[in-house]
């Protein structure tokens, strides 16, 4: 016989512990403010003029055709890294996320085991930052696109899996119960109930992650993997801020494009 109580998510207790956590974080923030040496001044004297220079270039980026071509090629490379990295992240995040949701388990014990194991793996993947993954992978397999793609895909897979598992758990229960009453096993309840109900949020979160992925892929340039980050790094070394901003604007354009694409898809998926 199935459990008589819908699985409770223990909201009241969650709220209480959230209050405690908020207090602890506020305390930590206050302590960190005390830790800053304010007597030195936050800005260095020369820093102020550098700020002026940097921001001036922000409205006057270098738009010469040659540089635009370089920027387009770099942006393309960054986009390819981001998309390929996100593909790897999906390959990791979808299966592990489903298992970590515990929704396809046959028994309570099975669910607990699956949730525990999958969450541990996901936590390991995402605890290590993509830059650290990049350094490790470059050390292991050399400066190759594969290193960049995996460096993005592994931690992002950990993040996606974690979010997917929660979205899959937090769908309305009434339609699921109705499917169970018409004889569906948990896997079928998953296919015809959980997945369709969680999908719009899953897709929208994935698009958000694609934006983050573009940003991260750009930064991967710093470890020598090419793309926008690499170009920004070179320009910075030359103190050519108007070139820096050309590349940064290219990054902004890409993120805006992904945002437009994502709202298009979301509109189509909305119930």
């Amino acid at each position, binding site marked *: 016989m199935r459990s008589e109580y819908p699985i409770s998510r223990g909201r009241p207790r969650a709220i209480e512990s959230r209050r405690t956590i908020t207090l602890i974080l506020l305390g930590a923030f206050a302590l960190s403010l005390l830790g800053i040496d304010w007597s030195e001044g936050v800005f260095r004297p020369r820093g102020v003029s550098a700020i002026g220079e940097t921001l001036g270039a922000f409205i006057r980026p270098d738009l010469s055709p040659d540089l635009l071509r370089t920027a387009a090629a770099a942006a393309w490379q960054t986009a390819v890294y981001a998309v390929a990295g996100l593909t790897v992240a999906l390959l990791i995040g979808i299966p592990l996320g489903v298992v970590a949701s515990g929704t396809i388990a046959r028994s309570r014990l099975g669910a607990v085991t699956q949730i525990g194991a999958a969450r541990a793996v996901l936590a390991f993947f995402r605890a290590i930052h993509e830059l650290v993954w990049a350094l490790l992978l470059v050390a292991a397999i050399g400066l190759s696109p594969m290193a960049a793609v995996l460096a993005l895909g592994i931690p992002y897979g950990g993040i996606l899996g974690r979010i997917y598992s929660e979205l899959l758990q937090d769908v309305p229960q009434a*339609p699921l119960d*109705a*499917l169970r*009453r018409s*004889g*569906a096993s948990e896997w*079928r309840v998953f296919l*015809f109930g959980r997945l369709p109900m969680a999908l719009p949020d899953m897709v929208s979160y994935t698009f958000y992650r694609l934006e983050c992925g573009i940003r991260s892929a750009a930064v991967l340039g710093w470890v020598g993997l090419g793309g926008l980050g690499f170009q920004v790094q070179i320009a910075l070394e030359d103190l050519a801020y108007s070139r820096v901003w050309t590349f940064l604007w290219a990054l902004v354009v890409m993120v805006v494009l992904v945002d437009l694409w994502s709202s298009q898809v979301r509109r189509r*998926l909305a119930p």
Partner: protein
Amino acid sequence: MLRANSALSSSNAPAVLLDGVSKRYDEATVLAPLSLAVEPGERVALIGPSGAGKTTLLRLIAGAVAPSTGCVELRGRNVASLRPGRELARLVGMIAQQFDLVPNLSVLHNVLAGRLGEWSFGRSLLSLVWPRDQRLAFEALERVGVTHLAHQRAARLSGGEQQRVAIARVLVQRPTVVLADEPVASLDRARAREVVRLLTDVTEEQGETLVASIHSIDLAREFFDRIVGLRNGLVQFDVPAFSIRDRMLEDLYEIEGLRSEV
């Protein structure tokens, strides 16, 4: 073609048999021990004030809740001995008040969900993209009069249309007993009447037994054979629909002193 699964069950056993069934939650007794037999094809309305135990009784029959004492039989088979899933789904199906459809799926998929107990995993997966058994689903949709909505998402439908789809889903499930918990509570009077008429008609055509909780006495009188009045977990009366008297209803819905209301 849409016949109830009669082969599954012994022919002369009652469709539903409750024998000394009671339900307690911790200290509170929600249903006092009661016995009730519903014959195949009978249409029984459960009425009573809210909190009387109607939903609990339906959930007991559906096998969604285990009784504290006594046993529930469907066509002579103890519900507790049936595996949840296909076996149970062939005997009993349920329509709830609302919020019961998967909002992001099309009406067609929602109706086909009634087949999930019968489908293999591969067939279910395939049906998400390429729906199987479509003819069955369209037959059901036609009988509830919403064929034109087949490809709409369930979330876009009105309350009355959603209940029609829920009925269509139970039609393709083909259980021997159909339960309905306040199926028209969220509808206006005219819609409510249409939906109850539809529910009683289609279950009758399929030779199915219907047990429904309903808050409208008029609809209970007009469309059901038998009315069971519940109050505080006790059966106050159990009579043929035509013989119900105003006096019985007054007693059933009589408001107790303020002390017990609070």
